[in-house]
């Protein structure tokens, strides 16, 4: 039954696409579609509403300001996942076919679990899976994971950059010797993922690292922080998640550990992570791949063309310019840029997922291009390739002043050369397990 | 009457948290007889049945059954030895059908393993059919055919009592313990139940120990009466002997019961 309904629509879609190619005229379905596996309820709703709000606002902005990319407008629809894996999969399957003939460009679930569950599917369906700032570290190796893009920053780069920053603060990486660093991590695969890298770096630079686990959800951390108090570390790296972050800050205060020596990672860096801790959060430092705030041309422009026109996606307009919102905008910029790059090669028309993938692999954002986009300082310089699906690996550091984040550093780069062999070892193991033959990237154009 | 008694209680005592429920009770039940336990409420009758089939463990004393002696009887062991019973407040499996309840009574006779049953292999089918036949015999015997597939919890009280008897009989017991089998019944139902108990004794040669308050029924039904009061034995003999015993009259028959 359903196939009877579905197939004609696909057929019509193909026909219209074919016709528009032949005649060169613009059809009604001259749109590029983004399936959005968003989450606006449940425990992680705060992140979801911000991120998807920013993403949608940017797409809207490109539509309003420039009429899309080369006349191809963007369209999207949302499907609520509640951050639950099965719902994410259901949404993926429901939306992957495109909308009203507009083909899907890429999926952006902003959820590690959903990303993992749709990883194989995205390769089969030839639909890029964008896991900005998160996801499988070894998917950085695009030769094994052609359709997965942990843009900007994978988890390994994250810790490496933090250690580099601590080194900076101590007056050079050689001064790390003998320092004591504690990592407080969420008791989950996500939390544990970077532990081996920290141990590796500890060996390399001669600092002492102690790994302390906080069981999920992390609403009770007394014993962990008493332990930290006993160790008296120079720095605490907070690899938190949800409620664990504010509780960590509160408990730190309770045990007398200074907030300005706690460094939050990429999932501990939003307003929602700091604000609930109240005064205890003041001074807390975290990494970010993009500053918060509205002081960038592109954000000013979005405010003018989208928000002021009453077309903004945020329910609470106060959240404009927050960490998650800006991440959504950055994600929008990168997705749209990929479409633009791909159109330059494949033609000014709606593209298939496979074509958009080529676009992602050939993204090249230098300072000049970023200035053009009005995103200089907001987005780090980024160059992707067949073998490198991360591209950047740099972060800036920000500090919570009790009300908002203030950027306190320039871009700090991760030691990606050191990490690459570890990533490849893991990706090759995966390839072997799944029987994948890696692409030969030297042959890719 | 056989040479060795089927059941022999020797100086049984039982207490709960220091409160004595049964004190030093001894008596014997011969093969094939119907023995009635009588006495006022709280005399320890039900507790005594519970000791016999291992629901409670006595503080001291010995239980002799079928020539064996036990300091403690476990429920499962009692069932294996051939002791079946019914309960004062009906202990049927309320969510199951009448047939299934009766079939559970045959659980010790099932020979096939659960794996055979799960895959319908080996002895499973023949076994199931055999148990079913036996169960149906009992169902016929107690005339509850028409409720065979009813869920027990939905049946009236009198019928439930009969189903419970059926479940007990399905195990082909040597000793049947009945705790107030006629409680709450009208005259007609009582005589019906009495007839079932007598038929059971005659047809299957089952020894019966029962608790009953209705003295008329007791005197008509039993071969042997034991009288309890405050956890002590105050009388033991044939119905006629007991009826004449002054202690019994004082303790029990003299009261308003």
């Amino acid at each position: 039954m359903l196939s009877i309904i579905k197939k004609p629509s696909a057929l019509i879609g193909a026909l219209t696409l074919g016709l528009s190619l032949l005649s060169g005229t613009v059809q009604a379905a001259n749109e590029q579609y983004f399936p959005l596996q968003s989450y606006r309820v449940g425990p992680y709703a705060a992140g979801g509403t911000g991120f998807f709000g920013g993403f949608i606002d940017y797409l809207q902005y490109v539509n309003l300001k420039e009429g899309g990319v080369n006349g191809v407008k963007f369209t999207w629809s949302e499907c609520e996942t509640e951050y639950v894996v099965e719902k994410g999969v259901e949404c993926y399957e429901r939306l992957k076919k495109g909308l009203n003939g507009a083909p899907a460009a890429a999926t952006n679930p902003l959820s590690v679990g959903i990303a993992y569950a749709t990883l194989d599917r995205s390769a089969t369906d030839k639909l890029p899976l964008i896991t900005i700032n998160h996801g499988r570290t070894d998917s950085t190796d695009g030769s094994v994971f052609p359709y997965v893009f942990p843009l900007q920053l994978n988890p390994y780069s994250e810790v490496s950059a933090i250690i580099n920053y601590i080194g900076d603060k101590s007056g050079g990486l050689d001064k790390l010797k003998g320092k004591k660093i504690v990592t407080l991590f969420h008791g989950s695969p996500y939390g544990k993922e970077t532990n081996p890298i920290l141990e590796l770096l500890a060996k390399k630079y001669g600092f002492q690292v102690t790994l302390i686990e906080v069981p999920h959800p992390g609403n009770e951390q007394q014993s962990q922080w008493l332990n930290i108090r006993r160790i008296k570390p120079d720095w605490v790296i907070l690899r938190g998640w949800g409620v664990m972050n504010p509780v960590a800050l509160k408990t730190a205060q309770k045990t007398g550990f200074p907030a300005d020596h706690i460094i939050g990672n990429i999932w501990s860096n939003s307003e929602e992570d700091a604000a609930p801790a109240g005064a205890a959060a003041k001074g807390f430092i975290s990494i970010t791949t993009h500053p918060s705030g509205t002081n960038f041309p592109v954000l000013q422009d979005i405010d003018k063309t989208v928000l002021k026109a009453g077309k903004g996606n945020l329910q609470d307009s106060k959240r404009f310019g927050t960490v998650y919102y800006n991440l959504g905008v950055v994600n929008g910029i990168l997705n749209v840029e990929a479409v633009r790059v791909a159109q330059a090669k494949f033609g000014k028309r709606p593209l298939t997922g496979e074509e958009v993938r080529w676009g992602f692999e050939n993204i090249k954002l230098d300072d000049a291009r970023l200035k053009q986009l009005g995103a200089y300082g907001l987005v780090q310089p980024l160059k992707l390739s067949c073998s490198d699906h991360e591209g950047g690996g740099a972060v800036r550091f920000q500090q919570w002043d009790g009300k908002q984040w203030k950027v306190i550093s320039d871009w700090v780069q991760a030691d990606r050369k050191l990490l690459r062999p570890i990533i490849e070892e893991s990706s090759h193991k995966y390839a072997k397990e799944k029987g994948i033959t890696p692409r030969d990237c030297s042959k890719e154009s | 009457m056989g040479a060795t008694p089927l059941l022999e209680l020797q100086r049984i005592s039982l207490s709960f948290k220091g409160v004595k429920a049964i004190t030093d009770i001894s008596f014997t039940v011969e093969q094939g007889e119907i023995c009635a336990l009588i006495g006022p409420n709280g005399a320890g009758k039900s507790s005594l049945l519970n000791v016999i089939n291992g629901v409670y463990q006595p503080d001291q004393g010995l239980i002799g059954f079928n020539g064996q002696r036990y300091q403690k009887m476990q429920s499962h062991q009692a069932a294996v030895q051939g002791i079946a019973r019914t309960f004062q407040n009906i202990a049927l499996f309320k969510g199951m059908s009448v047939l299934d309840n009766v079939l559970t009574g045959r659980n010790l006779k099932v020979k096939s393993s659960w794996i055979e049953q799960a895959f319908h292999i080996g002895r499973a089918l023949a076994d199931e059919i055999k148990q079913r036949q036996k169960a149906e015999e009992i169902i016929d015997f107690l005339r509850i055919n028409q409720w065979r597939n009813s869920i027990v919890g939905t049946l009236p009280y009198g019928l439930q009592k009969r189903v419970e008897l059926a479940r007990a009989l399905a195990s082909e017991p040597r000793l049947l313990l009945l705790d107030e089998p006629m409680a709450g019944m009208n005259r007609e139902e009582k005589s019906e139940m009495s007839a079932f108990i007598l038929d059971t004794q005659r047809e299957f040669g089952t020894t019966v120990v029962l608790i009953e308050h209705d003295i008329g029924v007791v005197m008509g039904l039993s071969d042997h009466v034991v009288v309890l009061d405050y956890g002590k034995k105050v009388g033991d003999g044939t119905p006629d002997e007991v009826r004449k015993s002054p202690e019994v009259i004082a303790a029990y028959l003299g009261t308003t019961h």
Partner: protein
Amino acid sequence: MEFFLEVLTGGLLAGLMYSLVAIGFVLIYKASGVFNFAQGSMVLFSALTFVSLLERGVPFWVSFAVTLLTMIALAWAIERVVLRPLVNRPPITLFMATLGLSYIIEGVAQAMWGAQVHGLELGISDAPLEIGGMLLSQFDLFSAATAGILVLFLSLLFNKTRIGISLRAVADDQLAALAVGIKLQRIWMIVWAVAGFVGLVAGLLWGARLGVQFSLSLVVLKALPVLIIGGFTSIGGAIVGGLIIGASEKLAEVYLGPIIGGGIENWFPYVLALLFLLVRPAGIFGERAIERV
């Protein structure tokens, strides 16, 4: 040694926080024999309502009063819609009904107040206090004191008032209580309302600790082992159970964690409770009924 004491006191104080949630359970279990899994959602709901009112500029005590009234209304609704139709059903059925209830309450709470995280400041400093080299949290001390006052209040309520006496009668024997003319429904409603009040106090303290958000409802998972150890029917038991769980899980995490791997606080209380159960099936203070057949 000093560190050991620090962990121990920290654990004991955290344990009292668990007790706060557990007390709500005990009240309801005593009066209606229901193991109320929705206690956690009630904590969430009350804290969320309170903080949302506060954020909208409603003064502290007015918010408190309004929230309390909401909890009483909730208790009334629960008695009407859930408890009354399920009277005389097996405890497991009632337990599962409270699971459904917790879903409803969580859904309503989020529909009404949204899912974002709220900070809650009760105006109690959380700066650490050093006493003889030992670290104490002012906030935890305050919570402990609150728990103490609450227990005092509840024991006064149960021992000195008419409601309390009827409640104890109901807890003892429902049929007998009915026979002497105690209105069961009314008692249930009152007890659920008091449990709602306890939930509100717990919600405020927990909310100030964690921020008011969804995972507040998860504190119920910590209260369960507390109840097992303390017994379902004793408020004193809930306090002692909380102290035992709090102290032992912290000590286990600190001293056992490094040996077998950290993050054991989630299951350790359950294993401890399980051991308790095997030794004392009715908890330390609970009474075991003799099984009658």
